[in-house]
């Protein structure tokens, strides 16, 4: 026999699932081909209002790489400084390095197009850069335990907050953070907010990072893409023979 408290629980869960389905159904459709938007003036100011005030803005997204020794003003830890001092830039021209992709922390702001496939329980980002494929779980699951494999794509869980897609990512492997010898650690935590313009032609992204193993406090980046109907990403097919 079902007790009243069980009925209330069932009703609550049903309402929750129903509301989640409605949220997914009402969510913007960000599917399609997006290419980097080179803007002369910023258009995605709404997302910035949600950036934490203490998140140091890194001014290198979309191809504006920082020089050696410039880490955007971040206060680096001893570990980061040691790794930087040991970094061999000539290795970047080796065959072993040539086709080594960066992590999502870095490749999301690279100036390459992407295609997004959006479902109810999954959103898939297919990146032209290094053929990376990133899955965002939208089914309400949590991050796995620490023993779950870390990877360049990391583990990402997302949800909609109104018309904004919020993605929480962990489980990365250490990889370049600024493409200048400074790597993020395997414990970096990244929170992203995606928002599409009302006309559906622009997609904005802010990222906020925490990685106390290599820098103090928080950092952030911003990106914008424009939609190109009918376009598709090309295979990257990295050729290691570029390396010496």
């Amino acid at each position, binding site marked *: 026999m079902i007790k009243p408290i069980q009925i209330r629980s069932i009703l609550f869960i049903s309402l929750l699932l129903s509301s989640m389905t409605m949220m997914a159904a009402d969510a913007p459709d960000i599917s399609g081909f997006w*290419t980097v938007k*080179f803007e002369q003036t910023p258009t995605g100011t709404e997302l910035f*209002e949600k950036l934490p005030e203490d998140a140091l803005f890194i001014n290198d997204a979309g191809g*504006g790489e920082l020089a050696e020794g410039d880490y955007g003003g971040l206060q680096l830890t001893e570990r980061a400084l040691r790794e930087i001092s040991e970094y061999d*830039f000539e290795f970047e021209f080796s065959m072993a390095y*040539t086709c080594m992709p960066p992590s999502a922390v870095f490749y999301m702001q690279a*100036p390459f197009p992407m295609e997004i496939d959006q479902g109810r329980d999954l959103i898939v980002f297919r990146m032209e850069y290094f053929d990376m494929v990133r899955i965002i779980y939208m089914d309400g699951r949590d991050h796995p335990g620490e023993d779950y494999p870390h990877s360049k794509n990391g583990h990402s869980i997302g949800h909609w907050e109104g018309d904004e897609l919020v993605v929480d990512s962990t489980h990365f492997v250490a990889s370049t953070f600024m*493409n200048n010898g400074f790597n993020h650690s395997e414990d970096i935590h990244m929170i992203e907010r995606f928002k599409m313009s009302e006309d559906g032609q622009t997609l904005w992204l802010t990222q906020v990072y925490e990685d106390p193993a290599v820098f103090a406090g928080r950092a952030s980046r911003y990106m914008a893409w424009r939609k190109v109907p009918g376009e598709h990403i090309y295979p990257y097919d990295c050729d290691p023979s*570029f390396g010496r």
Partner: protein
Amino acid sequence: MKKTARVILPGITALFLSIGASLGFAHHSFPVHFVPDGEVTVSGVVKSFRFANPHGVLELTVINEDGEEEAWRAETNSPSILRRRGWNRDSLSAGDEITITGWPARNDDNYMRIRSVTFADGSILATQRGQTLDQD
């Protein structure tokens, strides 16, 4: 939260300016390996051209001021980006007489990142936005 936007926006303006002037993203660091405000120009004959990611590579035979042959290598930015700017694997062929302009490498006298290629007939193939067919 409005304060955050006001504080950050000047930085964002700088960001957009820097994006507009982007020199081309690399799997390796561009400012570490090349001189962003430098320029080098050489003329010669194409020995080979490889058009594959992460960088196209051009081998060029140059006759220097002493009349001696010099071997030059030059890399492009990503062919993925360049194919949307009118490039393909047949853009350059062995035997083509060309002049290339680009950013000099910091640690290699005969290496550069290509900004543009000028052919004997005066036509130009460029690697950067705004200099050629640009769909980015």
